């Protein structure tokens, strides 16, 4: 009995991609625009979400899916306190959200009565990049204290983005951060990527980000 070779050529992430496509179709049917927000721990994901919700609350109905590696509801509690439905997904130690976890999170949100869903992915620059969730836009927050070399060291996450937020710009005077060098790396990985410098707590730059996001939501409603 001699071994026999069977040709397969199947993408290893195919199963996740298929679930992500189903999630995308559900969002589309409900007319909801969904954002996958990624960043390293401490880049300011939750702060940005709270400030975004605060600004859009008068005009949009929003829901938040919070991915955390442990059953800690700190982030979800803050969103709920801001008056928005929030779902906590505990990844059970996993370093990322995947299509299936996302689908379970969506089950717990009143999608039909929402305009925008923001997903706060697990704080990590490597793993989330490998798993499609079915959201319409991948957005990365890169904070100034992380340094200007991050596009060069974590190229994968930059390649799949639809928008980039450069956060904590109020710290620029205190930190060695070469914006030209940073943006050159970004441009090489993702030509023409739209980026928003913000200092969320001070409000700097938030208007441009909010405008962009609202335009995406409006385009989804029309589609």
């Amino acid at each position, binding site marked *: 009995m001699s071994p026999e070779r*069977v040709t*397969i050529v*199947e993408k290893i*992430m195919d199963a996740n991609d298929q679930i992500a496509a189903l999630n995308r179709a559900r969002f589309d049917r409900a007319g909801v625009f969904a954002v996958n927000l990624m960043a390293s721990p401490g880049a300011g994901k939750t702060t940005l979400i709270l400030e975004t919700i605060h600004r859009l609350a008068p005009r949009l109905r929003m829901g938040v899916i919070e991915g955390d590696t442990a059953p800690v509801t700190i982030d979800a509690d803050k969103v709920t306190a801001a008056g928005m439905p929030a779902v906590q997904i505990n990844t059970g130690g996993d370093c990322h959200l*995947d299509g299936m976890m996302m689908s379970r999170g969506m089950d717990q949100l009143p999608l039909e009565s929402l305009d925008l869903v923001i997903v706060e992915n697990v704080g990590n620059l490597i793993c989330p990049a490998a798993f499609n969730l079915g959201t319409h836009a991948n957005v990365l927050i890169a904070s100034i204290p992380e340094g200007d070399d991050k596009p060069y060291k974590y190229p994968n996450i930059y390649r799949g983005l639809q928008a980039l937020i450069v956060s904590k710009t109020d710290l620029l005077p205190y930190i060695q951060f070469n914006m030209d060098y940073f943006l050159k790396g970004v441009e090489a*990985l993702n030509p023409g990527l739209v980026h928003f410098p913000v200092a969320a707590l001070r409000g700097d730059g938030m208007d441009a980000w909010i405008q962009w996001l609202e335009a995406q939501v409006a385009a989804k409603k029309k589609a």
Partner: protein
Amino acid sequence: MHELSVTENILAIAEKHARKAGATRVTDIHIVIGQLSSIVDDSVQFYWDMISEGTLCTGAKLHFSRKPAQMHCRACQHTFTLIRGELIPCPECSSMDLRIVSGEEFFLDSIEIERDQPDQEP
């Protein structure tokens, strides 16, 4: 460390195709990994040994074929290979106006299987 989920996918795909082909055992699995796809072979192997036990793929050997990351410089049309995963400017003209040609592959290429051969004449 998302290699556990990735390894589970490899097992699921291999088993699906092995069953379809009527295999009694999978002996070898060939995987193609682009340099830019941030997968650590050793970690996949580690999880593989744990999760493949008791399946058609028990004891199957994993073979990783690494595809280098090829970059094309839009400024001077030079094509070059990234030695590590890290992004570097064009070695010819130092431009960062680069396009990725290859290196993002990540797929299960083929499996080698054994099966009973009841049809075969002696």
